[in-house]
């Protein structure tokens, strides 16, 4: 079965993805984004979301973390990255090992 890929975020950041064949869903605010994510989670296997919006609807995204699909990935928006994606990796490490012993040194 073939699945499409969705991109959610503010219009400036996501429009570019339309050109390479992804489905684009511009959102205006948090509530809008929540609704869109809930709707898309049923039909799409992979959803990219700009980190600014991902940051604000973190609680909604957490629900999808424990199952294989959909995969929701934060990407930087047009204004650049706000570190939300890296934060996710860090929290994974903390969850698995107990403290961030791998990369804490490299960052400083």
């Amino acid at each position, binding site marked *: *079965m*073939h*699945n*499409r*890929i969705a991109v959610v975020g503010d219009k*400036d*950041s996501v*429009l*570019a*993805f*339309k*050109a*390479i*064949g*992804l489905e684009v869903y511009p959102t205006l605010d948090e509530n809008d984004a929540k609704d869109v994510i809930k709707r898309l989670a049923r039909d799409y*296997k*992979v959803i*990219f979301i700009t980190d600014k919006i991902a940051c604000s609807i973190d609680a909604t995204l957490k629900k999808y*973390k*424990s199952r*294989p*699909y959909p*995969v929701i*990935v934060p*990407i*930087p*928006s*047009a204004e*650049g*990255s706000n570190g939300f*994606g*890296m934060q*996710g*990796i860090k929290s*994974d*490490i903390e*969850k*698995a*090992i107990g403290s961030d012993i*791998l*990369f804490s040194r490299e960052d400083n």
Partner: protein
Amino acid sequence: MSIMNVNPTRMELRRLKLRLKTAVRGHKLLKDKSDEMIRRFMIYVRENRALRQEVEKELSFALKDFMLARAVSSDAAIEEAIALPSVKAELETSTVNVMSVNVPSFTAVESGTKELYPYSFASVTSELDLSISTLSGLLGKMLRLAEIEKTCNMLADEIEKNKRRVNALEYVMIPQLEETIKYITMKLDENERSATIRLMKVKSMIAVRDGQTES
């Protein structure tokens, strides 16, 4: 640690010993599983981090180019240019079993025409071309990132769950079983001793009584 509420019988003792054996074996297995999962997690998470840094950097550049293109041409021109993309990004999805965790795995399916740019070069500036070609080159990496990030997420979850199981076995289940077994053994020994003493006592009472009747 409190002992369990059981009857101190041989049958119960046997049952508990079996349970202890299973618990110890399970504990060892789960601990090994945990070690291996953490080893794999380390590998994945390193790749995840490197990939994310790379993707974030390149994506920021591509999006900046796109912003530049939008600034130079009119909004309408840009939107018209990419309104009907000539390529379609599709996926074939499945799940892969990593340490008994089902993680997603997918491969991109090429479709649509070979021509990447859906517009005529005359209508927009070269920044747009650049941005789109970078983006389409980046898509593979982004998908790999999606795959691996989810794997890390799910592995971390599973490692946490597994840790709880190991701890429950190590610090609750096994001490409790050991203590209950000790309690039953003591109780049984005690019963045996009291039975022996009773027999000795009865024997001496009989001997005394027989001595009295003979005389």
